[in-house]
């Protein structure tokens, strides 16, 4: 099976090897066409973003204004902070020049002269590797002014790496732009969308690292070739990061639409100790979980996962065996979103804390079954009521863990009676007091 993003070629991170394998030929080809032609090919290929939302890449590029007196920018999102997601670092490590080539093509297509590659701060090693690759690309004339001579065109672009500093929220595109501008990573209200009003108020496109790394192959081999790989509505290969209770966790590049059971049992070596699966989150911690008894026939692409009530996200497949304590898992997830909420919107800032506290109360043995409804209620009030998608990301796991695994949570809660509790804040008004706690 052909691999697009991580081909099995030894030392591909060395520019000589990359060039010997047809490196920068796609950039040469793209630069000899018009930007519109390049966008059209990416559009027809059906390439969808690999950063979570699975938006059509070519369509996103076409939103960039053709005529503007402002500079245009390209941002490449390598923040990769979603628990369960660890694919981009493999690209930085094994195939940095294909990413750079993709950046050149994307910059040309949207007319950007400057591109910023945002990499999470914790990835010190991979930032150094990537910086080395960028320096080499400059030296060999594939970036900067020397490009004009190398490719024989008028186009040139610069690529800079911006190092994050430990904020999950900066993976959100508008927050990422604020972070590059030297501000706190607060997401911006949309509209205006980045294509109109992005970095420093200029037209900007933001793409995921994996998405961009696919682009050279599309230009080189043609959109028809790409569109025939994997699931028709979500073509290409996807980097699946399989983690949790499997024998061979790791990053695997496979065609989209592969069976989830194949991925877990054949590729990732099955579950440790041959245990049964209780739960799988197919796309990183913010996506709705699937029950172990619902995995048969589930395909790993955006459309198929939507049908079964989840989403592809970043392709981070988290496997939990039958002995996993889902309450513990959900508390840890809720804690994460509470910790990472930027604090801008009240529903998310307060709601993530309420959800964590309520879950901890249940773990302490003081929960009632009404708390489970309260949690879903809080989650429903966060979802859709915040500036960015972190609110949804925090609400989804809580809501879907409780609705899909209710029996797991019922184990921990006590039967309850309702008594009127005056002078409590709104959300607590209907909270019941456990029988055991009532002293007469």
């Amino acid at each position: 099976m052909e691999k697009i993003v991580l081909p099995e070629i030894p030392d591909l991170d060395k520019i000589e090897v990359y060039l010997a394998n047809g490196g920068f030929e796609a950039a040469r080809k793209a630069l000899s066409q018009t930007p519109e032609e390049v966008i059209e090919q990416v559009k027809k290929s059906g390439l969808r973003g690999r950063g979570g939302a699975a938006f059509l890449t070519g369509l996103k590029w076409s939103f960039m204004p053709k005529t503007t007196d402002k500079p245009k920018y390209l941002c490449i999102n390598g923040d990769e902070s979603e628990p369960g997601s660890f694919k981009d670092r493999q690209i930085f490590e094994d195939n940095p020049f294909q990413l750079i080539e993709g950046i050149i093509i994307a910059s040309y297509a949207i007319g950007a002269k400057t591109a910023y590659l945002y990499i999470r701060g914790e990835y010190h090693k991979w930032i150094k590797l990537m910086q080395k690759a960028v320096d080499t690309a400059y030296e060999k004339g594939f970036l900067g002014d020397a490009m004009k001579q190398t490719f024989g065109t008028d186009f040139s672009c610069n690529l800079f790496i911006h190092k994050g500093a430990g904020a999950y929220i900066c993976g959100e595109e508008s927050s990422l732009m604020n972070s590059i501008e030297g501000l706190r990573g607060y997401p911006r209200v949309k509209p205006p969308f980045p294509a109109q009003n992005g970095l420093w108020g200029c037209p900007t496109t933001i793409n995921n690292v994996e998405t961009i790394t696919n682009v050279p192959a599309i230009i080189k081999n043609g959109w028809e070739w790409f569109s025939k790989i994997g699931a028709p509505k979500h073509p290409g290969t996807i980097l699946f990061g399989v983690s949790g209770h499997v024998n061979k966790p790791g990053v695997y590049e496979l065609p989209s639409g592969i069976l989830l059971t194949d991925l877990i049992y054949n590729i990732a070596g099955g579950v440790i100790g041959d245990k049964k699966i209780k739960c799988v989150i197919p796309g990183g911690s913010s996506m709705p979980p699937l029950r172990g008894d619902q995995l048969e026939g589930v395909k790993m692409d955006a459309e198929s996962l939507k049908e079964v009530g989840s989403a592809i996200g970043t392709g981070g497949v988290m496997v939990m065996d039958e002995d996993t304590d889902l309450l513990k898992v959900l508390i840890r997830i809720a804690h994460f979103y509470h910790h990472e909420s930027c604090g801008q919107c009240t529903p998310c800032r307060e709601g993530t804390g309420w959800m964590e506290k309520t879950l901890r109360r249940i773990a302490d043995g003081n929960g009632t079954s009404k708390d489970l409804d309260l949690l879903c209620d809080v989650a429903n009030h966060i979802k859709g009521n915040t500036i960015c998608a972190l609110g949804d990301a925090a609400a989804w796991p809580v809501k879907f863990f409780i609705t899909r695994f209710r029996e797991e949570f019922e184990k921990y809660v006590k039967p309850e009676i309702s008594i009127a509790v005056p002078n409590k804040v709104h959300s607590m008004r209907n909270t019941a007091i456990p029988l055991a706690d009532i002293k007469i």
Partner: protein
Amino acid sequence: MSFKFTEENLKRIEEVRKKYPTALAAVMPVVYIAQEQNGYISNEVMEEIAAVLGVDKVNVLSVVTFYTMYYTKPMGKYHVQVCTNVLCMLRGGYEIWDNIKTKLGLDHMQVSDDGKFSLEEVECMGACGYAPMFAINEDFYENLTKEKVEEILNSLN
């Protein structure tokens, strides 16, 4: 205690400044440079960053207090960052965390008296397939076991 950038770092700042159209955008990389030189970001350091870049001090403060990788107090020579997020938790991250806490006698964001170690419980570091993991300063240590942790910590001096 006043803080001044070294000549070499001032040159680095000049280079960083060229990457961005505004001085404000250079705040994040310059805070990193300052942290490398000083170990942590004090008020004096923030004042100097603001002066060197010609931005308001409050801009530097707002950045330093938002991002978790900027330290406002001195950390140990070896800053141990243990991930306990879901995937590490599933594969024993909390046992590793508890062991290290006991071994070093430290809790979250504490520094040992001799300044050798500091400890931090961190959120997902992007090593989920190689869990459990911790990082010491800039280096990742993955697929940890209790024995491996002992060995790594004992080898530091």
